[in-house]
């Protein structure tokens, strides 16, 4: 075995043993995702949340049912009352609701967001309410529940925290307590050390999340249209990239407090910008472009495409390519900036 592989294997093995034997860390890394799954299962148990949300401005005293308009009898759509159309239009713009109906105007009007696929689908339903052909579309649309949509986001977010904090804190701690200085006195190269940390973390995170995904799928009956292998490939690529991102942050720091602060500054916007809980389709264009520069966006979008739309390898190839390119940049930067000792 060449020196490179021997050293890489030894460093990966040592780090993995350290992690596996750290009961509190393992506990947290397993328990947190399980809590997430249980939480999701609880929130989305029962008959299921409606997929669509429609605001209705109706004359006083009128019930929100088919007597007002046949469309209001559509199943899997939550109709709720708004007092004034002007207040609700903004919610349509932000895609917080899928459609707004106003029966107080003459003629009755509706608002839909041109950029929202759900809004467009609803529009079709509205136009064809009562028609046999369009009823079929309504059934198809109702199968995509919010839980199917949000689970890739929640698991992606969990992996992001595991990658960034898991690698960042460990390396900063090693630097602070002098362990890195000791390793620097051996033939182990910076790149080999970093790659070992990355591989060890990658294997552990992917294994834990495969188990969590399995549990989610079983408990929540998640929709899975595409290939598991594509999903796994995407997960490995995204985790590799996010761990490499953590390596950049930890390249020089020797204060855990500062590292924690910086990691929070990175992870919090990622959580918001990458569409974990809400679609960013309606967000400003600049924000959407910025989101394309974040690995979590490509993981979540790719995973949703595979799971919900049955996207194949070629369809997620742009996500994989972006993740690979970002990985190269982060890994190169991390190795170039890396310092063995405190300055």
């Amino acid at each position, binding site marked *: 075995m060449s020196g490179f592989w*021997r*050293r890489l294997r030894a460093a990966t093995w*040592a780090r993995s*043993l*350290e992690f596996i034997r750290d009961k509190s860390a393992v506990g947290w890394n397993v328990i947190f995702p399980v809590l997430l799954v249980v939480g999701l299962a609880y929130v989305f148990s029962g008959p299921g949340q409606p997929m669509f949300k429609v605001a209705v401005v109706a004359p006083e005293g009128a019930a929100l049912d088919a007597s007002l308009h046949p469309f209001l009898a559509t199943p899997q759509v939550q109709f709720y009352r708004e007092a004034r159309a002007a207040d609700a239009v903004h919610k349509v713009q932000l895609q917080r609701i899928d459609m707004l109906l106003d029966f107080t105007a003459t003629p009755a009007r509706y608002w839909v967001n041109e950029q929202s696929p759900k809004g467009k689908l609803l529009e079709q339903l509205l136009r064809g309410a009562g028609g046999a052909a369009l009823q079929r579309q309504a059934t198809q649309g109702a199968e995509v529940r919010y839980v199917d949509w949000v689970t890739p986001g929640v698991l992606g977010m969990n992996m992001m925290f595991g990658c960034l904090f898991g690698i960042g804190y460990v390396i900063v701690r090693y630097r602070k307590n*002098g*362990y890195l*200085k*000791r390793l620097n006195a051996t*033939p182990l190269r910076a790149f080999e050390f970093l790659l070992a940390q990355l591989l060890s973390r990658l294997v552990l995170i992917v294994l834990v999340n495969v188990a969590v995904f399995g549990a989610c799928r079983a408990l929540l009956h998640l929709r899975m249209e595409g290939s598991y292998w594509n999903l796994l490939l995407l997960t490995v690529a995204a985790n590799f990239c996010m761990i490499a991102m953590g390596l950049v942050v930890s390249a020089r720091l020797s204060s855990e407090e500062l590292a924690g602060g910086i990691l929070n500054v990175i992870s919090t916007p990622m959580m918001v910008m990458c569409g974990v809980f809400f679609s960013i389709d309606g967000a400003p264009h600049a924000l959407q472009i910025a989101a394309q520069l974040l690995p979590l966006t490509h993981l979540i979008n790719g995973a949703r495409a595979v799971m919900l739309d049955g996207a194949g390898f070629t369809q997620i190839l742009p996500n994989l390519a972006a993740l690979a390119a970002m990985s190269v940049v982060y890994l190169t930067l991390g190795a170039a900036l890396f310092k063995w000792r405190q300055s």
Partner: protein
Amino acid sequence: MPPVLQAIELVKQYPKVRAVDGVSFEVREGTCFGLLGPNGAGKSTTIEMLEGLLKPSSGQVLFRGAPLGGHYRERVGIQFQNTALQEHLTTRENLRFFSALYPKRRTLDELVRLCRLEEFLDRDTSKLSGGQRQRLLLAIALVNEPEVLFLDEPTTGLDPQARRNFWDLVQGVKAQGKTIVLTTHYMEEAYLLCDEIVIVDHGRIIAGGSPASLLAQHFDDSVLELPTAEVRKLGAGVEFKEKGELAEIHTADLNGVIARLLGAGASLAQLRIRPRTLEDLFLELTGRELRA
């Protein structure tokens, strides 16, 4: 044959302090070379330049007559003053890990025997005592059968018993013909282990040679220690230094001084006579205590 290591006019300048200021010396094959000095004297900075971990601001380190090359780290072993190890790994696992980083390796059995690791070989390293930990760190420094072993303040913080046990181990390593470079602020450690020393203060070498020759060169007397009250009975004419309740008389004429003390009616019940030490030498050269 060139010396194993040569330090030539080494300087390490930090923004606000010159930690090492033009240090030169040679380390011969198979000897134990000591850098002796108080905390902050520049010993650790000097040894880190010799280890190849710190780049000198100017000057050069030569290994067997040539600048330190890419494979230098495979040929030396280092024990730092403060080193953490990976948590949750046993002594055996740590040794295996560090062994795997080197192309040339000692067997685990040899290391265990040499550094007396048998009793805690399968113990988590976080549960080792200070002395056991230093023995493991010494074993790690020896995993690659190094040509030069660097020990940076290896016994700082150990209790006297653990320190003596560690000295035994180092003497065992020395007996195998290894070249050792040691930093310490314990003069007893330097005197016992080192064939040659340099005394460092404020980043400069203030004296160098074998411990015995240095002492012979600077002193021809011995030290008598007595309670100050007894020494005062001699009256004027005898110089002494007060150290708390004890007084020290430095003299080359032991018999004469003892006769005068008896003549003056002083009690010799608490008399101690000791030879000059490196600590005395440091005080003589700098006017300060070594461990002040």
